[in-house]
């Protein structure tokens, strides 16, 4: 099983789907942020798996995964700063209460 690309990919897909669920279902901005991290990790898992099983990618897989991590970090930075900024305005981390603008 650990030698089967499909297993890794399914696992990646599951992680991605769980992240998606969290993103769609949680109310808290930070929870949603965490869900996104889960999704990105799912993707990263797929990339690493491809690196391990696809001849053309080899070390590329790992390299890309590292880049993606850095991107995730940057996203987290930005996201958290925005969360903090809006928290100052609204005093709630619950995203579904940020609905001043609609229609």
């Amino acid at each position: 099983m650990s030698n089967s690309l499909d297993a890794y990919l399914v696992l990646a897909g599951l992680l991605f789907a769980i992240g998606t669920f969290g993103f769609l279902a949680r109310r808290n901005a930070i929870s949603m942020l965490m869900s996104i991290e889960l999704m990105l990790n799912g993707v990263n898992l797929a990339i690493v798996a491809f690196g391990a099983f696809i001849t053309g990618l080899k070390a590329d897989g790992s390299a890309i995964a590292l880049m993606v991590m850095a991107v995730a970090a940057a996203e987290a930075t930005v996201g958290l700063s925005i969360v903090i900024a809006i928290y100052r305005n609204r005093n709630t981390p619950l995203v579904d209460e940020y609905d001043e603008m609609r229609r």
Partner: protein
Amino acid sequence: MTGGLAALVPLLAADNGAAATTNSLFDYLIALIPVLPLVGFVITAAIGRRLDREAHWIPVGLVVGTWAISMIVVFATLTGMAPFGHEGHGVTLYRWIPAGNFTVDVGFFVDNLTACLLIVVTTIGMLVHIYSIGYMSHDGGYWRFFAYLNLFMFSMLLLILANSWLVIFVAWELVGLSSYLLIGFWYRRRSAALASKKAFIVNRVGDVGFALGIMAIFVNTGTLDVRQSIASLTEAGGQFTIPLFAIALLLFAGAMGKSAQFPLHVWLPDAMEGPTPVSALIHAATMVNAGVYLVARANPIFAAAPSALVVVAAVGIFTAIFAASIAMTQTDIKRVLAYSTLSQLGYMFAALGVGAFTAAIFHLMTHGFFKGLLFLDSGSVIHSVHDEQDMRRMGGLSKKIPITYATMFIGSLAIAGVPPLAGFFSKDEILGEAFKLGFPWVWAIGILVAVMTAFYMFRLMGLTFWGKFRGPQEIWDRIHESPPVMTIPLIILAVPSVLLGLFLGLPFGASTLQHWLEPVFASAATQLHHTEAEYQLFGIDGALIGASVAVAAIGIAVAWKLFGVEVGPIRKAGEPDRVRRLSARAPFLYRASLNKWWFDELYDLLFIRIGGRFAAALWWFDREVIDGTVNAVGALTGTSGRRLGRIQTGRVQNYALGIAVGLIVMAGSYLFIAGRGR
């Protein structure tokens, strides 16, 4: 463009038409006949206001000039002088419409028929102009009146002179316009405004037919020149897109409008809202004859479609009796004359219908003079009793206005058909011809109408001139005879009313008129297989004359019996009680006659009420359905936008779910596409 520019110098282009002849003096004279009144109209319309009470000089002077020129032209024509010959003479001014093979030239043509009408139109026109100087002397719109009159003269002369169907149509509409303007001359009177509008619109109904007839002529012949088209239409064995029967009826529709034949008669009585000279000129002597002229002009077409002629005869004689029946009970002096005009026009159409074209023109001419006279007389009467038109408030005027009385008496005798006055000859010829040409029913009804005519005319005389004055005393005191400028035309008109019949149509063999009009109607007569029968004074002809004279006498007698008489030694008071009893005895007929057989009401219902409802419904349809659809599309767009906008809930997770669903759908579609590609 060049054609247009050349047209600015009319006669230079005279030879670009079909008849390329050297210009004779008559070309200019013919052209001047309609142009003079046009000039008068333009000048008077432009500066008449400033001329004020002197405004009549130019228009009247020009009309007199027209009359003089006309008489020269008429003389030349009827005597067959140089350019006219047997067939007449034309002059082309310029090409009016150059549209491919559809070309219309403006040009004039004078033949004997035209000449006959010229006599009537210019003579009566001139006299009415003169008469109006007096009649309208106190009116605020003095200059306007003369401008309109000149416009009418121009239009009417153009109508009879034009040598293209379309130009005739132009003139046809222009006389309609001048009629509109003159009927509505006293625009402040609502009834006048309504009457003028009615006249124009009802005329337009007929015009539709005329216009379609012209189109049909063009489609059939490729030309609108009157003579050319008639020639090719009546060519033997011609095959046409549009049957001649249809063309004839369409032309007749136009004639019905202008000559106020049933069922388009309703406008003429109302047209009496106009000043009386107008009634005399337009609605008795000239314009209303245009229909007769048209049918006479197109006589070969009608002759080629005999079934159309039957229609003409039927409509004509029906109008005659129908209008006469109404005239018998009307109380407005001018309305009686108006219905009388209708009735007489009906005679003319009956004559045309039976194929007696000459008789129709004969009656047209005599009727023009004596009806013109009668109207001017009535105007004089009205003038004298201070604009009172109701005969129930007249009576005994013969003492106060003797000249008017005398001339009107002559006119009445003429119209009643008392020999040897003009009306006798022409009416007798119509009835006689009808009988002899195989239309006894026309004759029979015609005789009946003759009785009624004599009756209502002498009812009018009785109510107006004889007996006692029934109006207020202060009016009576101020009644006086009209000024000479009015009475002289009356006297002049009385002359032809007496003598014209004798001169033109003494019924012994071929009359003068028959001689004149022979070239115009010969082909039609041949077509209809008329044979010249020997005149039998002591045979059929004499019997018919006798019948005519007899019925006139009966009519007069009945009228005298009921409404009184004061002629020389014959004196008898009227019997109003008996009249009342008689009318009570035949209430339906009486009421029908009094209410003009309810045609105004019927048309009001049909066109104003029902038509108005229909129009309003259509407008509703326009707003709600057509525009409603447009607006509904807009509203629908807006609504759908609003609905779609609701997916923007403001909640980010909703959005995310939307994206996720979109992702799944997207994946599904890609998988589907991929699966299909396999």
